[in-house]
């Protein structure tokens, strides 16, 4: 204890410089952790944190027995797997083509265009969805009618939304991921390519036997890292695309949208906190597991 004060005194300025950051995380991250206690209560606004009735695991039991938890987990995990796989594969593909194709102007233009979605807000994604799919005058229905087909009412069918959500997720991250993979490709030494060319390897063989093997570690690492966050949902994306359209919840509700609705629509604080705690806890277990695996395979890439 004494040595700590000595240290504090000796590095007063350094402590003062990091103090605002520490205060920030205490107030906005650590203190709210105490609030997971709400998950074990029937929340009442008058009672507040410790004045609400303690009901043990009842909220969790309800979430589990009603099947809500299973549905939310299934949706969150499956969407994330689709996001991770499709995004990474497309990004990898784009990076390979952009590194090997001739034509500087073409590559520069397309890469700029593909990076553009990363910069816009999810509200704009909501505007896109409205413009494309709304049943009165959306672009898709305009096209269908011009082709002499029946208009399709997207807002009463659940089937298309899975694909719409995945599409816009991939759409938004394409340019960003491509840059990451491009950087990895650029770091491959030219000597490999030169040697392969001398040996008469064509471009497909070079992609297959040089670029791919060199990128596999990056690919696997990025996938593993993403798997650690597989229980975390992208609230912005789902909320801006689906909004409060209850008819679509069954196939589009993720943990984050459920927690948000518990807070802002149903005012079911205890239940929402319970779902959030479930997500945080198993998310934590997942990251620890993933980190443990990475540590075994490539310890220099481990998170901690």
């Amino acid at each position: 204890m004494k040595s700590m004060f000595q240290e504090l005194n000796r590095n007063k300025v350094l402590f003062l410089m990091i103090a605002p950051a520490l205060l920030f995380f205490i107030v906005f991250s650590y203190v709210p952790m105490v609030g997971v206690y709400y998950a074990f209560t029937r929340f009442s606004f008058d009672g507040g944190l410790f004045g609400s009735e303690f009901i043990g695991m009842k909220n969790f039991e309800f979430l589990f027995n009603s099947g809500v938890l299973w549905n939310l987990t299934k949706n969150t995990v499956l969407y994330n797997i689709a996001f991770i796989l499709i995004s990474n594969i497309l990004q990898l593909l784009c990076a390979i083509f952009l590194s090997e194709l001739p034509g500087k102007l073409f590559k520069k233009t397309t890469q700029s265009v593909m990076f553009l979605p990363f910069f816009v807000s999810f509200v704009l994604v909501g505007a896109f969805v409205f413009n494309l799919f709304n049943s009165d005058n959306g672009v898709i229905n305009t096209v269908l009618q011009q082709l002499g087909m029946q208009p399709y009412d997207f807002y009463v069918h659940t089937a298309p939304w899975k694909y719409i959500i995945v599409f816009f997720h991939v759409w938004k991250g394409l340019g960003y991921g491509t840059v990451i993979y491009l950087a990895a490709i650029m770091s491959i030494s030219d000597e490999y390519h030169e040697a392969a060319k001398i040996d008469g390897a064509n471009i497909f063989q070079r992609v297959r036997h040089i670029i791919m093997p060199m990128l596999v570690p990056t690919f696997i690492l990025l996938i593993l890292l993403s798997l650690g966050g597989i229980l975390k949902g992208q609230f912005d994306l789902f909320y801006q695309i689906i909004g409060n359209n209850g008819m679509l919840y069954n196939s589009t509700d993720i943990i984050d949208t459920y927690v948000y609705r518990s807070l802002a629509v149903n005012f079911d604080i205890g239940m929402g906190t319970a779902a959030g705690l479930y997500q945080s806890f198993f998310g934590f277990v997942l990251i620890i597991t993933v980190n443990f695996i990475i540590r075994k395979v490539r310890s220099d890439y481990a998170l901690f």
Partner: protein
Amino acid sequence: MKIKMEKTTIVFNAIGYVIITILAVLCLLPFLLIVSGSFTPEMEIVAQGFKLIPKQFSLDAYSAAFSSPKQILDGYKVTVLITLIGTMLGLFLTSMAGFVLSRKEFKYKDKLAFFIYFTTLFSGGLIPWYIMMVKYLDLKDSYLALLLPGLLSAWNIILMKNFMKSIPESITESAKIDGAGEFTIYLKLILPLSTPGLATIGLFMALGYWNEWFLANLFITTESKFPLQFLLYKILASAAVLKTNVAGNLSPDFQPPAETLKMAAAVIATGPIIFLYPFVQRFFVKGLTIGAVKG
């Protein structure tokens, strides 16, 4: 450079050009649709729906949007101010924290770094955080609710720390021998050398603040305090209500802009980003690439 291209190369290039072109078009198409929608007369939308190339060109939606520009100007004001203040203050706090954690002789650097990093591994969730913000910090309908949560992130601090670690130690050591204090070293020596890192993190932060709508959705209730993106969200949602309410009372040859107004609002709210994009993109790519190579 070979003069004659191999057959396989031609095939590869053909496939590549096709795939990349399709993907680039898909990335751009929604933007084009919004812009063309905003320049279409309302009557045409009602009769035929949105399409890529309108028959007629109209500025009705924009003149309607700017007929009472107060809403939009308020939105711009809030967003610009929050973005500027948030990014500046956030960069200052992030770089100070990163500086402290990058100092080798600072005994508690690993413990404090983990204290900060742990917040990315486990959280109390949205609801306890919300109750903290509203009940205990009393931030409902306050600008601070838009500003504070984005100020610091563990990732940015770690990124900053790693960046500053790569600055040669001899610089700080010689300054210390000359009697410079820690804060002077940070301000006069390390900060100027960290500009590439600061630029990258600053751009990410500014983009985050500019595109912010979620915090406003949770906390802001007064309309004049709406940031731009949240205003757009409200316009997209509430204009729909407006339309269904008035539809019956309108004469058949007059259509006030409603659908097209939403599109114009989307263009107005996104315009600056698109305009700055060519300048900003280069920084982003550079910053990302530095991070990626370093792993």
